[in-house]
């Protein structure tokens, strides 16, 4: 069975730790089935109490690295790798995730996830780094497609082909960010549906979704704005395809700044849960409850828990 997460999750952040707990416990709320923590922000030996409590309550916790620089030509930092491994051990995590990106070069930190040129040489570097990370981690690794404003003139292949080859050569899993497919659509005119159709969706450990904003004519994946309809539509397109592959993996909302009210976050999670369950995308944010009241058949169905058929078909060596 593919390691991953099921249901609906949210990025655990210190600033919303009590919100996450309230959303999880609320009888009428959307529920929280799993969380992700930014590895750089949580020390494995000094875990915040609210996060430790989530883990003790049985909520899966996925360590998510943001600065390993798997696509970089500098050697991987052993301290960053061992921290990811220690967090995975601390939380008995089902997997660990990182990005197909580089974030430093020539000893200088970019402070951001940057795209690697999609060339054979860059793929070889990624493959070597991913293999090194896999051997240092006690659990499987998933890598995420990033959001970018910049692309390289030397790109030789599509992102889907590039990711597909990386996955094929390393056995790494995919953390599919549907919002980043939207970013590529706005910033480079790339077709997100063609990308979904070309990616190995049966190897998605879990998915990310987040809001962003248009500024200077380009899409910024801010994680500080509500998830817009066009991004929920992409989630729906992914869900439709994942269902035919045996189950919809977990979908996690990333929110890193400008935190809204608990009610607004609950509304976003409820909308994500509905779409992940196969319901039509609500016409406007905040209408998911109305859709449920209408007796829409799709909303009543729970999210299919992965395993079974899908697991049997995709046992990895």
């Amino acid at each position: 069975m593919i390691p991953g997460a099921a249901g609906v999750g949210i990025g655990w952040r210190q600033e919303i730790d009590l919100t996450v707990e309230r959303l999880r416990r609320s009888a009428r709320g959307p529920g929280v089935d799993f969380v992700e923590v930014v590895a750089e922000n949580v020390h494995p030996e000094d875990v915040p109490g609210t996060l430790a409590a989530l883990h003790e309550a049985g909520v899966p916790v996925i360590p998510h690295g943001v600065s390993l620089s798997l696509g970089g030509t500098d050697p991987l930092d052993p301290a960053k790798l061992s921290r990811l491994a220690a967090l995975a051990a601390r939380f008995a995590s089902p997997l660990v995730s990182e990005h197909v990106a580089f974030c430093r070069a020539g000893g200088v930190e970019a402070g951001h996830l940057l795209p690697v040129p999609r060339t054979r040489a860059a793929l070889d570097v990624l493959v070597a780094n991913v293999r090194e990370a896999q051997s240092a981690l006690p659990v499987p690794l998933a890598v995420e497609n990033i959001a970018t404003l910049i692309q390289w003139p030397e790109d030789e292949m599509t992102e889907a082909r590039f990711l597909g080859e990386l996955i094929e050569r390393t056995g790494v899993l995919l953390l599919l960010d549907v919002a980043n497919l939207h970013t590529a659509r706005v910033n480079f005119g790339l077709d997100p549906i063609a990308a979904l159709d070309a990616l190995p969706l049966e190897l998605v450990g879990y998915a990310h979704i987040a809001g962003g904003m248009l500024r200077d004519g380009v899409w910024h994946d801010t994680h500080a704005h509500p998830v817009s309809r066009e991004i929920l539509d992409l989630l729906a397109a992914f869900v439709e395809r994942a269902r035919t592959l045996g189950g919809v993996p977990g979908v996690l909302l990333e929110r890193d700044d400008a935190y809204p009210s608990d009610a607004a976050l609950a509304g976003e999670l409820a909308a994500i849960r509905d779409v992940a369950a196969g319901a039509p995308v609500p016409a406007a944010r905040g209408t998911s409850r109305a859709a449920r009241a209408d007796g829409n058949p799709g909303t009543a169905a729970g999210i299919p828990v992965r395993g079974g058929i899908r697991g049997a078909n995709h046992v990895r060596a």
Partner: protein
Amino acid sequence: MSAREDLAARQASLVAALVAGAPPPSGVDAERVRIQSAALLRKRGRSLAHAEPELAAALGPRFGTAFTAYAAGRPQDGCSANDADEFARFLLKSEHARDAEVRRVARHIHLRRLLHRATRAAPFRGHAPEPAARPLPLG
């Protein structure tokens, strides 16, 4: 140059363009690099303001221009606490130091950093060694 060395040079060139004011790598859209660079500066400034709300409040509407003057062309060196200390030291040497509240908060941040470096028993695992502190006159 091997393919790997070439890749390393291209990556270094993009990072330098984004955080150190270097020209964009050849063939990469200069306008996109400018937009990304500005977004990174805003992100770094937000992160610092979030970590040091008292300093952000003391500077008020001047925060953006003061931070840009400090950070443009100066890559972040070390963690955000180190960035805050460097910014505080920059402010103490700038015209903003004439503002008593900015001066008080900036000194506090710098002192706290000195104390942190002097008192911690062992380096925080996962961080690169930090540069030696060069204390500013605090009188």
